[in-house]
């Protein structure tokens, strides 16, 4: 039996809004070795953007000195992205997951971040502790490109 291909990468950066785009592009670049479909890649970029934005706005309340850590793991065709901040933490995780719920309506937040994560990924796990921070774990089984390449 062929051993399952595994790989990982870690990124550590300041909680600045200009790093939101860097984070999603970096994760997508790492995962491009799996030759994912454009759709899967767009989904992953979107959820990384959601989680990092949450850390910037809610975790650190836009204090740019905050630190965000991303660990991306590959296990065969399954990917896992873990986004961690050491910020305020989420008071009520169940409430935060509700579609259209936002604790910051004055900032024009749509309250759709977790709903998008749940729709685009197979698993969304939230570990949060008040005053210590939040880790979001996102898991997705990538769509195989194989069917297409078998035909060609």
């Amino acid at each position, binding site marked *: 039996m062929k051993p399952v291909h595994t790989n990982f990468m870690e990124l550590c950066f300041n909680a600045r*809004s*200009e790093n*939101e*785009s860097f984070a999603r592009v970096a994760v997508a670049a790492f995962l491009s070795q799996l030759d994912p479909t454009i*759709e899967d890649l*767009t989904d992953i*970029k*979107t959820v990384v*953007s*959601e989680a990092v*934005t949450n850390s*910037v*706005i809610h975790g650190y309340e836009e204090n740019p000195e905050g630190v965000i850590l991303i660990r991306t793991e590959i296990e065969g065709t399954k990917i896992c992205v873990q986004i961690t901040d050491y910020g305020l933490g989420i008071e009520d995780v169940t409430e935060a997951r509700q*579609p*259209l719920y936002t604790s910051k309506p004055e*900032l*024009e*937040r*749509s*309250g*759709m*971040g977790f*709903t*998008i994560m749940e*729709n685009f990924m197979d698993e969304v796990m939230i570990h949060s502790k008040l005053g210590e921070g939040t880790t979001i774990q996102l898991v997705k089984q990538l769509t195989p490109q194989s069917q297409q390449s078998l035909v060609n």
Partner: protein
Amino acid sequence: MALHLDVKRSKNVLVARLDGELDHHTAAHVRKVIEEELNHEWVTHLVLNLEKLEFMDSSGLGVILGRYKRVTQMGGKMTICSVQPPIERIMEMSGLFKILQMFQDESSAVSACGVAS
């Protein structure tokens, strides 16, 4: 900046064309520019042309909803056009199309505003 915004006037309709990526970082600029333009007396309606918008997350939804509230309060109509499929999916998920009409091209989106005035 990873987002370029072009605004133009078509009678009493403000047309904003977004080019690039709309996230929390670029949303601030989009909000500021459109809000300033909406202060002009001639503006009644707003059209967002998203033909060249390559990426959008929930921060983009917030900006769109915010402008929708403002334009509706002004008694105007807001429409969007030329939405790329991945962005359309996020909009669909959030129920945005229950309040916003989407069109294939800019001229249809602009005339839809005209009809309402």
